[in-house]
């Protein structure tokens, strides 16, 4: 387990993926699920001894849902790892400088305008999230430098301002409170292929950029001053990390709501097991985030079936004790 991290996590990801498309209100045996999927590829041909609605459920509902959940987990954990590296702070998560509260506000503004379709909610959230980051970055900038402490403080201030606006909008229009709460708890994962196709470019570009930033984050671990003396263009790296993390997080939040804890804890678990080299930590966190959110989502869909629990509740309810257990076991090791 210590030696082949990518193999171990990739296997886990494949396993959770299969479990996720198999389990739900109707259970499709994983063997059948695999054959239905592979049968779609040109090289395979399977003759199904399964009811035809299996294919409909799997291909039209579970598969796009599962892919979106996996990408969301990947985005949150990858951004969380990058932010922890950029801010050199174990408490940093993808929402630290306000992308989630901005996205929440954007989503609720769209919800509160009558005659506007539900399909515009992700777009409102995406613009709200990125817009907030742009404002925070601009506010924190002093001359040509963006001090990280100022960035955090500006982010927290803008974050609580937008959250307050969100709460206010929720209170004055009581019919959308449930929908809004569901978004803020990460229970609004959209369904079908269409949103996935829209979101996919943001996820892939964002995740790729996050992986590319690994080396620069390593250099930054000695502090900004030393990083610059070692030849790193520190301000450029900051902007690069902020853009790539915000892009991926905004995409995740827009289509799945605000899911807590994954972005904070998955990187720590990876760090505890496989160390703090960001060139590995970021891709491993991305894969681990996919695993974690897929498993949480399976629980969220099955615990109260046929009802659906917001997955953000599951990640925190189960994730927090699990993380504390790991933390206690590893307390002797230096991991941060």
């Amino acid at each position, binding site marked *: 387990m210590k030696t082949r991290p990518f193999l171990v996590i990739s296997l886990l990801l494949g396993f959770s993926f299969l479990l996720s498309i198999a389990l739900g209100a109707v259970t499709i045996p994983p063997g059948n699920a695999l054959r239905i999927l592979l049968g779609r590829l040109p090289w395979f041909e399977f003759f199904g001894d399964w009811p035809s609605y299996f294919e409909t459920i799997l291909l039209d509902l579970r598969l796009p849902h599962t892919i979106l959940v996996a990408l969301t987990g990947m985005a949150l954990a990858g951004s969380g790892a990058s932010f922890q590296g950029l801010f050199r702070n174990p408490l940093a998560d993808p929402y630290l400088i306000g992308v989630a509260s901005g996205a929440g506000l954007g989503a609720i503004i769209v919800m509160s305008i009558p005659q506007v379709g539900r399909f515009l909610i992700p777009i409102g959230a995406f613009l709200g999230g990125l817009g907030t980051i742009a404002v925070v970055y601009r506010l924190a900038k002093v001359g040509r430098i963006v001090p990280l402490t100022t960035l955090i403080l500006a982010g927290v201030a803008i974050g609580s301002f937008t959250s307050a606006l969100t709460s206010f909008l929720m209170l004055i229009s009581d019919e959308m409170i449930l929908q809004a709460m569901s978004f803020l708890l990460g229970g609004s994962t959209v369904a079908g292929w269409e949103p996935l196709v829209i979101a996919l470019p943001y996820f892939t570009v964002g995740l790729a950029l996050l992986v590319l930033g690994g*080396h620069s984050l*390593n250099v930054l671990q000695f502090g900004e001053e030393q990083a*610059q003396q070692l030849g*790193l263009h520190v301000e450029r790296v900051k902007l690069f990390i902020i853009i790539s993390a915000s892009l991926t997080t905004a995409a995740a939040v827009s289509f799945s709501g605000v899911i807590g804890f994954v972005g904070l804890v998955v990187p720590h678990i990876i760090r505890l097991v496989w160390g*703090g080299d960001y060139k590995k930590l970021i891709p491993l966190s991305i894969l681990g985030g996919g695993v974690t959110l897929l498993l949480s989502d399976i629980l969220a869909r099955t615990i109260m079936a046929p009802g659906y629990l917001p997955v953000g509740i599951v990640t925190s309810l189960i994730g927090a004790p699990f993380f504390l257990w790991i933390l206690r076991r590893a307390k002797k090791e230096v991991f941060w």
Partner: protein
Amino acid sequence: MKQNNYPPILQIRSLSANYGDVIALKDISLDVQQGEIVGVIGPNGAGKSTLIKVLSGVLKASAGEVLINQKEVSTYSPSQRARTLAVVPQARQLGGAFSVEQAVLLGRTAYLGFLGKPKQDDLERVQWAMEQTEVDSLADRKLAEISGGEQQRVLLARALAQDTPVLLLDEPTNHLDLKYQVNLLKLVKKLVRQEGLSVLMAMHDLNQVSGTADRVVLLANGQLKAIGSPEEVLTQENILQAYQIGIDTFTHPKTNKHMIFPTE
């Protein structure tokens, strides 16, 4: 100091710097020759660390110029600068998650691409730097697991990996016990002789400066108060003015080095 006819490697001309409205350095001019160790002394707040910050580009100079190999470096990008001048900071708050070898490899940052993938010559330079500083046996150890003296040698190795003609050291013997202090300074001297490096080193211990540096620069209140051989700079008058403390000076009977002893 050996006089030669080559132009100095590092030339500092009328350099000034501020922190906001506070003047931190005022009109500093000095040269460092190839193969020379220049010790920078002065009381706390005199501007020693500021000088290193300005030279390494972390703090912008408000006036004056810095030339390395007769080229003005203020327009250099961080990576260009890191290929001409390396800094050995004080060993503290080292990223504990890195191994010694990973940390030394970061000295190659300015030569690596954005992805930080090392080539054969990068790895060879890293290996060489670790051997010179005798940390090669610690290559796989985590930084958090090694002693302060070893950490300081790792930082020196990282600076050597940068492969620069000029080395700046910021109070490198702070936090080290006597054995490590002596060993580190011996190592710096050896590297200077062997590699022809030029060293500018901020230091607190005046007798160590006298034993290590070819020339000494005395800073006080951001200004250059004296420059010259240890005997010329470490005088009763200079030290009283800069540190407000009385000293006696004498020549060490065995090493013949100029020494000072506080009389208060």
